[in-house]
């Protein structure tokens, strides 16, 4: 049994906008959401920049909600409410409604704030909500509760590919008949001195502090690392049958996914790109598509020196000469890297590219690294063809995770 899966709703809050349409407008225009972190602690840090959500969740949610939710849960709830409304608030049997929302790190800022309270005021002053704020399944649980989902609430964790893995897991729930509607995506809000110090210790972060908006620059010869971002992206996935029966507007089709692992190194990409290439090939196979059917790739493209080249190698390894005709974009050049939220927001940008037949630019790509042999550019948006088209979204994570998801036009 494999039922067709469609996308009927989208919601997001990121460093470039508080909802889907404002995000898309900024992304097509190549606008960066990166800025200097306005906190005294950045003083001693090598990387002092990040992508902060443009709309603070505290300005939207009620105080009694926010005091029991980690910031990642707040972002997930805001994006999920937008997605649900965008889907027309589906009338669905809650026992056929699932939730799969990923996070890379979970409620780390709540954990560390609680630790500060423990040291300062003692164990009796720890919030009774701390545990449910720090658990990685917190965003999925909060959103599942909001909509009463009873078909299952899940949280795949695979670092920076978590959001894409969540979408593939959600699609599988529908394909195999466990659910008719699944709220799926990823959320992350982990900008904190300790995470910044940790990623900086790996030499993974850009230190272009004097020009924050130019810091995330995938494929550019002068790229020097990724920029942390925060936010959430949520899609409503639905069986085609269920969507048609309720007269829902279908925004795109989930075509297939490939999930593999490198077996190479805990944090470095396989320079041969073998695992990532297999993920792309598996996704094409599940989608019953060929490389020539792809018109656009929303690449993982974090702006690290090694990662961008390895991904280019993987793409060419999987797609061969068809690669020359596929327009590739790295939208982390504008949003920064949302870790567990990345695969989710970039899946939404992929679906929007299909909807509007426009692929976004890669901002800050001034001088292409000669080792990158992809069809990329910073003069966007680029027109995509009419007719039946497919778009690939790549996501990779520390631990050697490779996830490729393909969406198709309706």
């Amino acid at each position, binding site marked *: 049994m494999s039922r067709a899966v469609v996308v009927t709703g989208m919601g997001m809050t990121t460093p470039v906008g508080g909802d889907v349409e404002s995000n898309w407008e900024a992304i097509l225009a190549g606008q960066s959401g990166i800025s200097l972190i306005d906190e005294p602690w950045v003083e001693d840090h090598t990387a002092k920049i990040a992508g902060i959500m443009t709309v603070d969740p505290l300005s939207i949610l009620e105080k009694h909600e926010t005091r*029991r939710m980690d910031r990642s849960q707040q972002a997930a709830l805001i994006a999920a409410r937008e997605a649900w409304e965008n889907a027309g608030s589906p009338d669905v049997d809650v026992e056929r409604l699932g939730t799969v929302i990923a996070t890379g790190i979970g409620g780390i800022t709540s954990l560390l704030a609680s630790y500060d309270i423990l040291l300062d005021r003692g164990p009796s002053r720890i919030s*009774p*909500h701390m545990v449910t704020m720090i658990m990685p399944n917190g965003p999925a649980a909060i959103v599942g509760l909001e909509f009463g989902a009873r078909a299952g609430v899940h949280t795949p964790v695979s670092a920076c590919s978590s959001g894409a893995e969540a979408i593939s897991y959600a699609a599988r729930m529908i394909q195999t008949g466990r659910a008719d509607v699944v709220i799926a995506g990823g959320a992350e809000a982990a900008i904190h001195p300790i995470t910044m110090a940790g990623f900086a210790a790996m030499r993974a972060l850009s230190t272009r502090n004097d020009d924050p908006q130019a810091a995330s620059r995938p494929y550019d010869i002068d790229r020097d690392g990724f920029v942390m971002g925060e936010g959430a992206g949520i899609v409503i996935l639905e069986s085609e049958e269920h969507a048609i029966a309720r007269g829902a507007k279908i925004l795109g089709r989930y075509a297939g996914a490939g999930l593999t692992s490198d077996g190479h190194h805990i944090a470095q990409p396989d320079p041969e790109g073998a695992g990532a290439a297999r993920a792309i090939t598996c996704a094409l196979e599940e989608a019953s598509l060929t490389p020539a059917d792809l018109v656009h790739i929303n690449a993982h493209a974090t702006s690290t020196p090694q990662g961008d080249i390895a991904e280019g190698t993987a793409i060419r390894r999987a797609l061969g000469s068809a690669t020359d005709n596929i327009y590739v974009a790295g939208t982390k050049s504008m949003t920064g890297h949302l870790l567990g939220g990345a695969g989710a927001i970039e899946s939404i940008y992929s679906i929007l590219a299909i909807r509007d037949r426009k692929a976004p630019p890669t901002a800050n790509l001034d001088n292409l690294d000669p080792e990158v042999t992809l069809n990329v550019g910073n003069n966007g948006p680029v027109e995509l063809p009419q007719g039946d088209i497919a778009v690939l979204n790549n996501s990779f994570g520390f631990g050697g995770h490779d996830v490729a998801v393909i969406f198709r036009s309706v």
Partner: protein
Amino acid sequence: MSQEEVLGGLAVIVNEVAGVPVDQITLDKKFVDDLDVDSLSMVEVVMAAEDKWGVKIPDAEAKNLVTVGDAVAYIEANS
């Protein structure tokens, strides 16, 4: 400290914890049944009350605080 002062202070705390409008928080209201304050949120209410009035509300006592009036009386008697 008057009963009204304690009730007013407690109403602010319950509002922040559970989102119930302050004017609906009266002496006869039950925390769980009327104000949607679950056992976790009740821990928050107790913690905030301890901080505000310098009282100690042990778990054995907290579980007897069924209504807002029970809590007000306990705080008045022990602060």
